[in-house]
C-alpha cells in the first residue's frame, strides 16, 4: 500500500478543497490515520473506494472513541511588581480543550489486497453537536457498526438508513461506553473486592449510609 502521505496527495489532487490531517501514532505499530473533515467525509470515502490505485472496497471495522474534556496546566513566568520591586512570579495557565467523540474506520482493499487505511471522523463536542456523516452509503458493511457506535457512544450518524439501538433496548437512555457513564448501583457482595470493584463497594456502602 502507498504511504499515508501519498494517499493524501492523491485525495488532494482529486478533491482540491479537501481538509485532511494525518494523526500520527507513536506506538511501535506506527499505524497513522487520516482525519477527515465531516462535511467532506462521504466524498473522500467514495474516492477511496473508487480510485483505481486505492480501491478500498471493504470496511472491516468501525469503532468509537470517547475523548473527555482535558485541562492542561502550564506554568508561565510573569514579571510582576510585588511591593514595588519587579519580580518573576510563576503563574499557572489552564488550557481547556473540549472533548469529542470519534469514529474510526479501518479500510482494506479486497481487490488490490492492501490495507488497512485508518480513517477518523470527529464530532464537534460530546454534547449537542455529536453528529457525524454516515458512510453506510459508501460501504454497506458499516451499517451495523455505526448503529453500535450510536448505541454505546451516542454519536448520531446523519444519513444512516436505520439508526436505532442495536445492543441495548430502545428505552435505554445512557451510553455505556462513554467514559463518564454511571452504572446503576446493583452492587453484590464480593468476597475479595479489589481495584474498580473495591471502589464500587465503597461507593455502595457510602450511599447506603447516606440513606439511613
Amino acid at each position, binding site marked *: 500500500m502507498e504511504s499515508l502521505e501519498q494517499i493524501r496527495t492523491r485525495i488532494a489532487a482529486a478533491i482540491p478543497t479537501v481538509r485532511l490531517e494525518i494523526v500520527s501514532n507513536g506506538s511501535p505499530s506506527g499505524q497513522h490515520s487520516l482525519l477527515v473533515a465531516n462535511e467532506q467525509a462521504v466524498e473522500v470515502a467514495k474516492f477511496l473506494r473508487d480510485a483505481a490505485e486505492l480501491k478500498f472496497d471493504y470496511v472491516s471495522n468501525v469503532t468509537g472513541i470517547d475523548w473527555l474534556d482535558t485541562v492542561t496546566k502550564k506554568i508561565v513566568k510573569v514579571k510582576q511588581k510585588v511591593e514595588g520591586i519587579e519580580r518573576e512570579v510563576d503563574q499557572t495557565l489552564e488550557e481547556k480543550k473540549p472533548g469529542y467523540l470519534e469514529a474510526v474506520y479501518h479500510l482494506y482493499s479486497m481487490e488490490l489486497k492492501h490495507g488497512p487505511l485508518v480513517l477518523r471522523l470527529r464530532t464537534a463536542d460530546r454534547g449537542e453537536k455529536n453528529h457525524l456523516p454516515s458512510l453506510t452509503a459508501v460501504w454497506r458493511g458499516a451499517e451495523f457498526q455505526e448503529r453500535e457506535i450510536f448505541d454505546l457512544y451516542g454519536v448520531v450518524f446523519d444519513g444512516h438508513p436505520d439508526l436505532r439501538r442495536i445492543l*441495548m433496548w430502545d428505552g435505554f437512555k445512557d451510553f455505556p461506553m462513554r467514559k463518564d457513564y454511571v452504572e446503576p448501583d446493583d452492587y453484590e457482595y464480593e468476597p475479595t473486592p479489589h481495584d474498580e470493584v473495591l471502589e464500587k463497594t465503597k461507593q455502595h456502602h457510602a450511599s447506603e449510609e447516606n440513606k439511613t
Partner: protein
Amino acid sequence: MDEGLKSELRKQGVFLTSFEELYNWGRKNSIWPLGFGLACCAIEMIATSMARWDLARFGAEVFRPSPRQADLMIVAGTVTKKMAPQVVRLYNQMPEPKYVIAMGACAISGGPFKQGYNVLKGIDRYIPVDVHIPGCPPRPEALLHAFMTLQRKIDEQPLSGAARPRHLVAGAPSEFPVPEFGEHDLEPASNPAVWQPPAPARA
C-alpha cells in the same frame, strides 16, 4: 413403612412401594428440558445430549421446542439484560412442576461479565433455581451431575405436609413478574421474593 423392612422384602422378591415413591420415580426419570441455549454453555449442553455423554440414560433426551411441554429449563449461558425478560417469560409459560438448572458461571452470577453494564448478575434474581453448576463452561459431566442432583431432589419431594413442593401448594405462585426495560437498568433489578442474598457482616 420402615425402610429396613422394605429393603429386606425387596431382597426376598416382594416389591413394596408407596404412591409417593412411584410418582416421584416416574417424574424424575422423564425430565424433558426446554431446548434453548444462550451462549457457549449451550454447546456443552448439546454435547451432553449426544452419543458420547448420552443424556438419554437419564430420560432427558427429549428437548422440547415449546415451553408448554417442558419440565426443566437449563439456563445455559450468559443472560444479557435484554434477554432476561424473555427467559422469565419462557419460565412462566412452562407448566408445573418445573425446575431450573443454572448452568455455568454467567447464568449463576454473571461470570466474567459481572461488572459489565449489559449482563444480568445471575438468573436467580428473577426465577427460583434448583441446581447451580459452576464452570466456564462446565464439562458435560458437570451437567450430568446436576441432572442427578435434580433427580435426587425430585425423588425426595414429599407429596403432602408442610415440606411439599411449590406446585402442590394451592395459591403458591407459578409465574414470576417479568422485568421491564427501564431507562438505566431492568426494573426491578431483582425479584425480592425469589432472591434474598445473605448480608455479610461488615467491619
